[in-house]
């Protein structure tokens, strides 16, 4: 037990921080969400690929960096601060799912391309609003040598940018993972206009044909949950990054802005808002990293994931809303950008499950389910 970042962890974080500061300014973030814009951040993607981000957690034999899930968390924390486009995390989530659920063949076919930045992916593994509910949304039916996949899933992120999507399907009582080409025949994608702009989709599969090679062995619920919780825990880390940046901006504002002849930040009420944001973020940061660590170690991690979500959703919502309070009107107009973090916080605080949802996972873990 040693809750201090190692020099390597600090270096990685600093490198990613600098990279994103240089190549992911809010002008980029904003331009990607303009109506009709190309949502793919090509230049940033290239830099992140070059920095090894897309291959961070994968074995070197698949072109990866051989890192731990904790290293992905280091990236995701900075991604949250910079509001880096979610296609990076979605692609990493796809890779993690393939790595953990697929066999050697699926890994070998996808992870090298993914690590090289040449393949983009996403997943539809858990129920919207409940990362713990990994029941398959689709059905798979034998059709000769192929499978026919049908059904629909909602709130699938970055489906518009993905080359591949990993879904789960009920194949006559067994759950299998299926890797689909996102633009195959019978795949329909409908945008869902959510807070903060585009990025979420309804995925409708109407008898899409896949080969056996694109299908995993039967999967157990714990195995599936370990993946959906790992992704959810990474989103918790992202929430922490979002919260940290909202706090940083608020602090910067109240240091500079004077009212009543003194910096706003010299008022005790402002300082206590900052302190409370800080406390909430500390709880969220430690518990989110603990969840990633547990899931990275291969544990079920449900307890840690639940704790992380309960703290991270709250910390990010409070930090962004209180950042608005500290900014006053100055943070409320669109041109000052703060709302971008507030929206990301509220969206991420919803998709894998709210604090109440996570509390139900935790209750079950401690024997309080009735």
């Amino acid at each position: 037990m040693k809750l201090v970042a190692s020099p390597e962890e600090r270096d990685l974080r600093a490198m990613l921080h600098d990279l994103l500061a240089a190549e992911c300014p809010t002008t980029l973030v904003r331009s990607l969400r303009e109506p009709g814009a190309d949502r793919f951040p090509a230049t940033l993607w290239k830099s992140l690929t070059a920095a090894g981000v897309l291959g961070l957690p994968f074995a070197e034999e698949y072109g990866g960096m051989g890192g731990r899930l904790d290293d992905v968390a280091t990236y995701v924390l900075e991604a949250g601060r910079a509001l880096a486009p979610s296609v990076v995390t979605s692609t990493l989530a796809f890779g993690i799912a393939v790595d953990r659920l697929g066999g050697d063949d699926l890994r070998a076919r996808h992870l090298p391309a993914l690590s090289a930045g040449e393949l983009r992916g996403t997943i539809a593994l858990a129920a919207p609003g409940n990362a713990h509910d990994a029941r398959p949304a689709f059905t798979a039916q034998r059709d000769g040598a192929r499978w026919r996949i049908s059904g629909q899933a909602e709130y699938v992120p970055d489906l518009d940018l993905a080359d591949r999507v990993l879904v789960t399907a009920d194949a006559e009582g067994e759950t299998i993972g299926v890797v689909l080409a996102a633009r195959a025949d019978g795949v329909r994608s409908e945008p869902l206009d959510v807070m903060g702009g585009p990025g979420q989709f309804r995925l409708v599969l109407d008898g899409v044909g896949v080969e056996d090679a694109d299908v995993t062995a039967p999967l157990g619920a714990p195995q599936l949950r370990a993946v959906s919780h790992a992704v959810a825990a990474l989103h918790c880390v992202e929430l922490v990054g979002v919260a940290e940046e909202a706090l940083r901006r608020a602090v910067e504002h109240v240091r500079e802005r004077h009212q009543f002849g003194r910096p706003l930040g010299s008022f005790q009420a402002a300082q206590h808002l900052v302190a409370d944001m800080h406390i909430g973020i500390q709880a969220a940061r430690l518990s989110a990293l603990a969840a990633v660590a547990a899931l990275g170690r291969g544990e079920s991690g449900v307890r840690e994931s639940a704790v992380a979500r309960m703290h991270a959703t709250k910390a990010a919502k409070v930090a962004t809303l209180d950042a608005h309070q500290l900014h006053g009107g100055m943070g409320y107009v669109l041109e000052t950008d703060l709302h971008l973090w507030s929206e990301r916080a509220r969206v991420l605080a919803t998709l894998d499950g709210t604090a109440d949802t996570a509390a139900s996972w935790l209750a079950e873990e401690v024997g309080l389910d009735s």
Partner: protein
Amino acid sequence: MQFELDDDQRAWLAEVREFLSAHVTPALKAELAEHDLEFKGGEVAAFRRAIGEKGWFGLNWPVEYGGLGLSAVHQHLLVSEFEYWGVPGPDLTVTSVAPMIMRHGTEQNKAEFLPPIARGEMICAVGYSEPDAGTDLASLRTRAVLDESTGEWVINGSKIWNSGAQRSTHEWLCVRTDPDAPRHKGISVIIVPIDHPGVQIRPLIAWSGYRTNEAFFDDVRVPATNLIGEVNQGWRYITGALDLERGALTNAGDLRRSVEDLVELARQPQADGTVPADDPVAVRRLAGLVADVEAATLMGYEAASLLAEGTIPTVQVSTEKIFTSELRQRIADTAMDLLGPAGLLAHRNPEAPLAGAYERLYRTAPLLRFGAGTNEVLRDVIAQRGHALPSYGR
């Protein structure tokens, strides 16, 4: 204390509701959903005319100023009901500006400005805040200098959060008229027609989608008689108006509607077949909101009752403002939690629950925590004016 409406109040509320039943049409609601308050002409304009015809813009003004002479409680009932129906009612011009003109204006001020306000023809944007002076109004720097040769005030400076300027006829403008006096002593209020040369308006769009403005004043000239009341006495007028504004802004009519709608929504099956109200934890949170709206409603009645007795209930209104603005944020957050991912859907999405009302409320809610006096300053007010704690030198 009387916790029931009396016969007169009941009859009044019935009249208001009858009016709303007749005039709140789907066309009006559709225009509001699309354009908020920003659309000139059309359904909202017609609705405003209908209110004017009832004389309700001056409902609590004395009869001598063309008002109906009704009480602050009548006003409160009407405003809350308008909020409940989600339509704009009497705005700050009639609820805060006009009362200050009545109380402090010269006879000429009253004769010149009150009748057009009562008819709904004169609408003021409120020019208090400046880019470098947000909550700290007293540090404002917009200058007005009297040109003795022409008998005109010459105004230079700028204002921010100048909401509604794009559909207003005048500015209720707070200016510095004695730069050498202590901060609070050299301030005056001057009425400036918005179409005057030298006035310029630049839109600012808020997170809520609401449009507010910056306003710039470049050698703007108005007659000396546009000064309200006495020169260098403006601080009193604007703090009085602000108290009234807070009162008007902090009715809980819209919050009651939000919570009622949410309770109803929680009882319906969602797209995935689940019913939020089947979850006792969701029900507990909803019950908390219901209880809070009840308290907010009572706070509103108390403030109105005190106003009707002739006091400006500064502490009560501060309490109500803090309570309702923080409640608004709780409602929005609870609603989004209860609705789950579907709650993220924005209002143009046909599947959005209640046309995305709560997604929007989440973005709207922050404003009232810091607007109209930050909740931090108002907490100071409660402690210092309500409990005689010493100022710490703000």
